[in-house]
């Protein structure tokens, strides 16, 4: 590095076009950014704001449909050619490394990770003898406990966190000046996320690199960022130092996003009412394979919970903790191996015929993926009205109630005749909620119902849930990995790990004063959350 103050990367007035017929003419426009040595610039925005397009432009991997039309990108003072250029890309990959959101998917599934890392050295002409030691050294630098065995592993044998370490190792292998990280922790559990953030901070110093960190999460920004740029609809709305922007946001959109990210348990109090759904020491074991290679997996172990009418219970845990399996048991989509579940005092395992049908209509579910949950060949009105029709109401009545439900969840009656593809993720989730609520359920089970949505939309959907709950009086089991969401919506909470409940109680007391070690760890790993205070 000749001049320590010169910018590593400089974008001036960059504009990237969208193909004809897209909803806007420019993917991003008027983008000016500067990254100084050893600094971390966080690019924040919701999906569709153009963050990833900028990363791809910098790395030279823009798809042909999105041409770089305006402005210049300068790397270490030199302009990058606008056209895709194979020879320049080889050079560029020495100076910059990139980390992706889904680490496992960004590795070739059928090659050992060690060989994939060596390949990077191979194409840059490093001799066979030097390659393996350098890869192993890098694998220990990213703090993988056993570099030799990691070297020999295939991507699918690693957890998301381990795979992300591998990808980071690959990105830093040639000691680049800039690390571009596109939502690198979004797909990870909170505790793993905290580890990866810590790792990136450590490596930044060790390898003397700058970081462009793309995220939608302000908690993450507060942990890792020096500078921040907030984006919306392809434009930068606000930029400056993280301290200033988070303390004193100027732009109205930034303020709204920040408010959405708060961990707020203030309004929650447990109501004492009639118990509607109760699980008593239930266990669920999955058997995998058949005959010779059968294995057992204990998904849920001795879980008890109680839900009173009109209240909300949050089930919190990381992926693989058994939350969704628990939901399946409560819905009687899986039969428990031990323990009993009571709906209004009746054991649901005994329900048959009309009683079972009644249970099915009174306990409804909203799932995580609003894209997969709707049949693409069903018009919205048919999707919503299907339930009541099956349960015996007339076609006309079901349809008129479906229209009512649409306006209740904030969609226009005109949307009834359209197909799911024509709606955004948030709108589809509203449709799913309408579909569940038209049955007039007493219990609504929401399985990660807002996880796939952007933060500002998340807030709207959470508000919708609360509002509808007040009006219609159903009880909710809200399954989430996100502590912010749990805090915002629930009266009581149970924390799950490896199929077991590690802590339960009223939401405010569990979050303010956690007893179990695991709960404390979850809370301290939540980005931007320190000692019970939000951000």
């Amino acid at each position, binding site marked *: 590095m000749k001049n320590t103050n010169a910018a590593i990367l400089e974008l001036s007035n960059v504009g990237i076009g969208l193909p004809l017929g897209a909803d806007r003419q420019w993917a991003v426009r008027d983008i000016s950014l500067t990254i100084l040595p050893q600094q971390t610039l966080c690019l924040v925005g919701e999906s569709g704001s153009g963050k990833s397009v900028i990363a791809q432009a910098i*790395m030279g*991997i823009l798809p042909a449909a999105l041409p770089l039309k305006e402005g210049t990108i300068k790397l270490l003072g030199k302009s990058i050619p606008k056209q895709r250029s*194979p020879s320049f*890309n*080889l050079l*560029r*990959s*020495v100076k910059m*490394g*990139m980390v*992706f959101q*889904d680490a496992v*998917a*960004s*590795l*070739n*599934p*059928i*090659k050992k990770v060690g060989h994939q890392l060596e*390949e*990077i050295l191979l*194409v*840059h002409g490093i001799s066979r003898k030097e390659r393996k030691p350098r890869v192993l050294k890098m694998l220990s630098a990213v703090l993988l406990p056993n570099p030799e065995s990691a070297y020999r592993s*295939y991507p*699918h*044998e690693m957890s998301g966190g381990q795979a992300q370490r591998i*990808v980071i190792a*690959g*990105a830093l292998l040639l000691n680049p000046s800039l690390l571009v990280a596109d939502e690198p922790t979004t797909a990870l559990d909170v505790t793993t996320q905290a580890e990866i953030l810590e790792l990136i901070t450590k490596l930044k110093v060790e390898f003397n690199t700058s970081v462009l960190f793309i995220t939608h999460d302000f908690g993450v920004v507060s942990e890792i960022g020096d500078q921040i740029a907030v984006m919306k609809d392809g434009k930068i709305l606000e930029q400056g130092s993280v301290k200033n922007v988070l303390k004193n946001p100027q732009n109205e959109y930034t303020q709204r996003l920040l408010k959405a990210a708060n961990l707020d348990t203030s309004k929650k109090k447990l109501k004492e009412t009639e118990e509607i759904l109760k699980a008593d020491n239930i266990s669920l074991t999955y058997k995998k*394979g*058949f*005959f*010779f*290679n059968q294995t057992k997996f204990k998904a849920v172990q001795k879980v008890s919970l109680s839900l009173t009418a009109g209240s909300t219970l949050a089930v919190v845990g990381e992926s693989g903790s058994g939350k969704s399996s628990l939901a399946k048991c409560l819905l009687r989509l899986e039969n428990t191996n031990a323990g009993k579940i009571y709906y209004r005092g009746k054991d649901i395992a005994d329900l048959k015929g009309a009683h079972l049908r009644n249970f099915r209509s009174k306990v409804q579910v909203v799932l995580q993926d609003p894209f997969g949950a709707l049949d693409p060949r069903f018009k919205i009105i048919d999707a919503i009205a299907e339930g009541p029709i099956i349960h015996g109401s007339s076609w006309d009545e079901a349809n008129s109630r479906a229209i009512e439900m649409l306006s209740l969840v904030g969609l226009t009656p005109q949307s009834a005749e359209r197909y799911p593809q024509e709606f955004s993720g948030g709108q589809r989730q509203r449709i799913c909620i309408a579909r569940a609520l038209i049955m007039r359920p007493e219990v609504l089970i929401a399985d990660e119902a807002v996880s796939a949505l952007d933060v500002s939309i998340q807030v709207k959907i959470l508000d919708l849930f609360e509002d509808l709950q007040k009006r219609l009086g159903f009880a909710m089991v809200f399954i989430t990995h996100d502590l912010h969401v749990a805090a915002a919506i629930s009266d009581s909470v149970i924390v799950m790990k490896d199929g077991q409940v590690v802590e339960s109680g009223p939401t405010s007391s569990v979050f303010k004063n956690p007893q179990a070690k695991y709960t404390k760890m979850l809370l301290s790993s939540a980005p931007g959350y320190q000692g019970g205070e939000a951000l």
Partner: protein
Amino acid sequence: MTGFILSKLLRAFITLLLTVSLVFIFIRFSGDPAAAMAPPDAPQEVIDYYAEKLGLDKPLWVQYTSYLAQIVKGDFGYSVDSGRSSVSLFLDRLPATLYLGGFSLLIALTVGISLGTVAALNRGNFLDRGVMAFSVFAFAMPNFLFGLAVILIGALGFQTYLGGQGASISWVGVLPPALTLGLASTGSYARFSRSSLLETINKPFLLAAEARGIPRTRRLFFHAMPNAAIPLVTLIGLSLGGLIAGSVVTEQVFAWPGVGQLLVRSVATRDIATVQFIVLAIAGTMVVANLLVDFLYLIIDPRIRVQ
């Protein structure tokens, strides 16, 4: 992994047992074998004599168990037509069929996969459209028609008779029937490899490889193609399994002295032992080919090994 292998072997064994049993049942349903063996105007005593000699007077389950026992011993009966064992008749014809089938598979694989790759890399332009149009033509074309067309063109255009020289197998002679037989599978290999490669090319790990600076040709040959080949293995397995059965029509058209021809003739003469053995051989190759594909997956796709 041993569990995986054992369960696949068990499945193959069950499939074979089912085929053997179905063959037994169908042949019993297709008429009285004793009556078929005897001359058309034979008196009832002669038919009864044959029935007793063949064990057809015994209860069905006794017949079934002795049939199974014979198969285990490798005794598949004798051709009534020529008096030779059905196995030796089959083995006489096998090389010709394998030669033809192998040659056509080679054509289908090389031409089909190359065309598919070219189409995938030129997605949407005229090359892609041309390849796709060809592949639709290729597998929509019935091979008896295409075979006749080949013979016709050879005779009228080049004054050469391509319709086969009876019993001789030669390099030149195999080309017309191999092209005819390979045409349909060339079309499906082209289509299949195109879609498989397109799917792989759009996977995130190839974008990641580009960001890591891996050059385009290396990405194609070291990353995209091996991954795209995985689903193709199943198709290759099916082709291998159909090696014996697939060429019946083509062998007829080109007078190719293979198993297909033998099968057609044996059916015509009601030569039950031979028909039965050929059917078992066809089913057997299919089962073995599928088993090989399953084991091949263990080698080429590490994700299956962990299960």
